[in-house]
């Protein structure tokens, strides 16, 4: 069941605030909130890869977890076009209903060492989702696991081994095989290559790309690495202190930046080319505390283009050119780029 324009996931004004409690033995009272995700909206089309990029603490991982409902959102809507159930709002489902939805949304973790149970064999790990949902048993389960392992480039003979026998790259393949087991519609990839060595990273990126094409998968690809995001994503959203500051098609975003933070982020990324002459925009200070964000535009204390208006008025995320959204009062007036 699909909407007209092929939207698979529509996130509107999503919020996740973590309470900070006062010190006290009997009464725990929230004195403040960490606004980890603070009004995030975006859509992902079927078969699209949306890259979500930002620095640590910007809320990108929390966004992924709230969408998956590993965390309960504080507010907002997450409309998902489920293959079996039609349109559902993930933000409102209870646990029993979520169980059905989780067949169609899977997660790939960052750390291939802590995300696999060391006491389970490969067959148990990869076959667990199929077993849990009572889909396959016995010989059929065994065959499906073998097929999945082959799909991610592992030999089915390894099925009876335990995770410790595998390298980081191979473990990440195991995690991918597990995520694929139920034929999901969407996979949330949370920094899937940042723990891997350079030569292994390329193998995993290619694998993710191949699987996406083969099964028309939809990815929400979360990463801090602009190079990886540019390589894999169709569209890119840049996050800063719980908000999306810019979102556009990948090439459009990298070629005509519309937000000063995206510009600073891109100019900070080292270029593997000694002849490259790139602009360096050093940022002053530190990322603000999401419990006490600055007034107005959250980026204003570090922005080199800051004007008085930025200090009082929070800029909305608005469409500056078709398909290119930016949360800056002066997007059009600034000529940004690196």
């Amino acid at each position: 069941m699909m909407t007209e324009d092929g939207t698979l996931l529509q996130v509107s004004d999503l919020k996740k605030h973590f309470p900070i409690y006062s010190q006290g033995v009997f009464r725990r009272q929230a004195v403040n909130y960490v606004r980890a995700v603070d009004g995030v909206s975006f859509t992902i089309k079927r078969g699209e890869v949306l890259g979500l990029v930002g620095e640590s603490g910007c809320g990108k991982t929390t966004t992924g977890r709230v969408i998956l409902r590993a965390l309960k959102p504080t507010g907002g809507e997450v409309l998902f076009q489920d293959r079996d159930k039609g349109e559902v709002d993930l933000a409102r489902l209870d646990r029993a209903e979520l169980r059905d939805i989780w067949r169609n949304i899977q997660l790939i973790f960052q750390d291939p060492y802590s995300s696999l149970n060391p006491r389970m064999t490969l067959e148990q790990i990869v076959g667990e989702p199929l077993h849990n949902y009572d889909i396959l048993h016995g010989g059929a389960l065994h065959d499906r696991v073998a097929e999945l392992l082959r799909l991610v480039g592992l030999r089915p003979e390894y099925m009876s081994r335990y995770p410790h026998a595998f390298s980081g790259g191979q473990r990440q393949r195991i995690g991918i095989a597990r995520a694929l087991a139920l034929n999901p519609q969407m996979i949330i990839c949370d920094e899937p290559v940042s723990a891997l060595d350079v030569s292994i990273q390329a193998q995993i990126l290619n694998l993710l790309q191949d699987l996406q094409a083969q099964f028309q998968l939809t990815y929400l690809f979360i990463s801090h690495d602009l190079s990886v995001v540019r390589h894999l994503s169709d569209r890119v959203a840049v996050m800063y202190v719980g908000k999306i500051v810019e979102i556009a098609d990948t090439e459009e975003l990298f070629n005509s930046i519309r937000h000063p933070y995206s510009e600073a982020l891109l100019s900070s990324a080292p270029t593997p080319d000694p002849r490259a002459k790139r602009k360096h925009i050093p940022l002053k200070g530190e990322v603000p505390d999401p419990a006490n964000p600055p007034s107005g535009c959250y980026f204003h204390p570090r922005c080199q283009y800051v004007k008085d208006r930025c200090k009082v008025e929070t800029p909305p995320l608005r469409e500056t050119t078709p398909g290119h959204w930016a949360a800056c009062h002066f997007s059009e007036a600034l000529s940004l780029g690196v």
Partner: protein
Amino acid sequence: MQNVLLEVKDLHVNFFLTEGTVRAVNGVSFEIERGKTLGVVGESGCGKSVTARAILNMVRPPGRILSGEINYYGYSDAPVNLIALDPEGSEIRRIRWGEIAMIFQEPMTSLSPVHTIGNQMTEAICLHLNMPKDEALRYSIELLERVGLPQPGRLLNHYRHELSGGMRQRVMIAMALSCKPKLLIADEPTTAVDVTTQAQVLNLMRDLQQEFGMAILYITHDLGVVAEMADKVVVMYLGEEVEGADVDTIYYNPAHPYTRALLRSIPRHDIRLDRLETIEGNVPDPTNIPKGCAFHPRCHYYVPAQCVHPPYQQIGDGHWVRCTRAHEIGQQSSQTEQVL
């Protein structure tokens, strides 16, 4: 030889483990020039960090420096062979920090959790520079200011857990600079910090290098950082140098299959690539390094009879390669040129 500050000659370091002997550094030789930056690149387990520790004679058991020379030309008179010194002796202790300082990947573990930043800084400064305490305090504030930390006077009373990753790394740099070392060894100093913080730290290191004229040995796995920081580059694989040259040659005319493959396998934020090339397989188990050329099981250019223990040979001006087929490979243009 006048410009050479440090010379590593045929260094061998082994780790004697129960699983077997790991030849972590297997005959590495390079030179670091005064005031210049040498980048050492490689994946985990290639021996780059062990090499750095060997320079300061800080290899701990089960590791042991087997042979080689590390000649330090920092004093005006004769060179000092650092690994011939007693690792606990007074001379090497004067050289560590005083002449050669080091910053590590995780500044959290290099700072004491139970001493304030001020305590740690002044202790080291008093010891190495023979300063009285109040003068050391003033000097600490000056240093913290120089590395761009706000309110350095207040910072001295803070503990490490009260600082962010970027601030900790700045404190480490300030401490490392306190004795105006002639060589700064930086072992993945920005791997644990965010990209905007990384840019700040790299800028700071470049500025300070200009100001103090120190040489930097920059160890990293990040080919982007090396391109921005290094004058010369050494690429390591399984304890050996596979290629060494100036930074431009490494990126635009690499001659070792491993270097070429690494450059083609990284995603880029500055240009669009359709598909990454991969290096097949994994880095082999270090207790069981392949015979002959260590890279041969993963190499596209492997010819069984030809690739038998290639020597590290010079194929161009300052361009060294460990590959028997380096000449033919060097003829082909690099990927970077094709793309740009």
